[in-house]
């Protein structure tokens, strides 16, 4: 399995990343992908993503290795952006390739659910009226991560 992990300020190219996963192995039958982006509304203008350099990369690699151990993958990718991102901008890309669609799609959900509360990123929102707010972790996100941790066979 080939793991590709990146933490970067630059945008990611979904087409390039999808093609990377598709091309990894002739035994790949399905590729699951997820893109998280800055959701607008309520006057939100942008978000700034802060992270813990060094720990971030190590955490994302460990997460990708865990996905490999749980699911029968031909490869997986995790790319997370940092810095200031405006409404509509991509924040995170995760993807997984596998022989069958079930493993590819379940691994994709696993990667994004675990990344949300398990990798050292923090979001500060910036509103049109000048307010800035550090985002609180959502209880539903923490539950989703715990569900994976409590169910090592899924």
């Amino acid at each position, binding site marked *: 399995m080939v793991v590709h992990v990146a933490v970067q300020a630059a945008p990611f190219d979904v087409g390039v990343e999808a093609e990377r996963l598709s091309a990894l192995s002739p035994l790949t039958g399905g590729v699951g992908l997820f893109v998280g982006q800055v959701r607008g509304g309520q006057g939100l203008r942008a978000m700034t993503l802060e992270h813990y350099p060094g720990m971030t990369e190590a955490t994302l690699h460990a997460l990708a290795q865990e996905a490999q151990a749980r699911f029968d993958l031909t490869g997986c990718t995790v790319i997370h952006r940092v810095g200031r991102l405006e409404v509509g901008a991509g924040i995170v890309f995760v993807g997984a390739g596998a022989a069958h669609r079930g493993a590819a799609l379940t691994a994709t959900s696993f990667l994004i659910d675990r990344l949300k*509360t398990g990798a050292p990123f923090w979001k500060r929102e910036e509103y049109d009226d000048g307010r800035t707010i550090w985002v609180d972790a959502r209880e539903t996100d923490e539950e989703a991560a715990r569900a994976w941790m409590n169910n090592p066979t899924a």
Partner: protein
Amino acid sequence: MADRVTVLFFAALREQIGQESLSVTIPASGVTVAALRTQIEGANPTIAQALADQPKLRVAVNRTLSTFEQLVTPGDEVAFFPPMTGG
């Protein structure tokens, strides 16, 4: 640098404290994260307030999520931060 640990703060904590790192002297035999926290809180009321304002404070020792019972020894890197909100 002997008998020192680096302490880092991130996100709302970093902002509230107004600095992103400290260098702290500890006993060569080490201390728990909880004891280290008490030590830096005692030395700086701003840090004490900022840590108290985080009901779900997280800690990493040497870039691995840890508990407050974890032993910290000289040379370690200890980071305090709020719950993570990536993705």
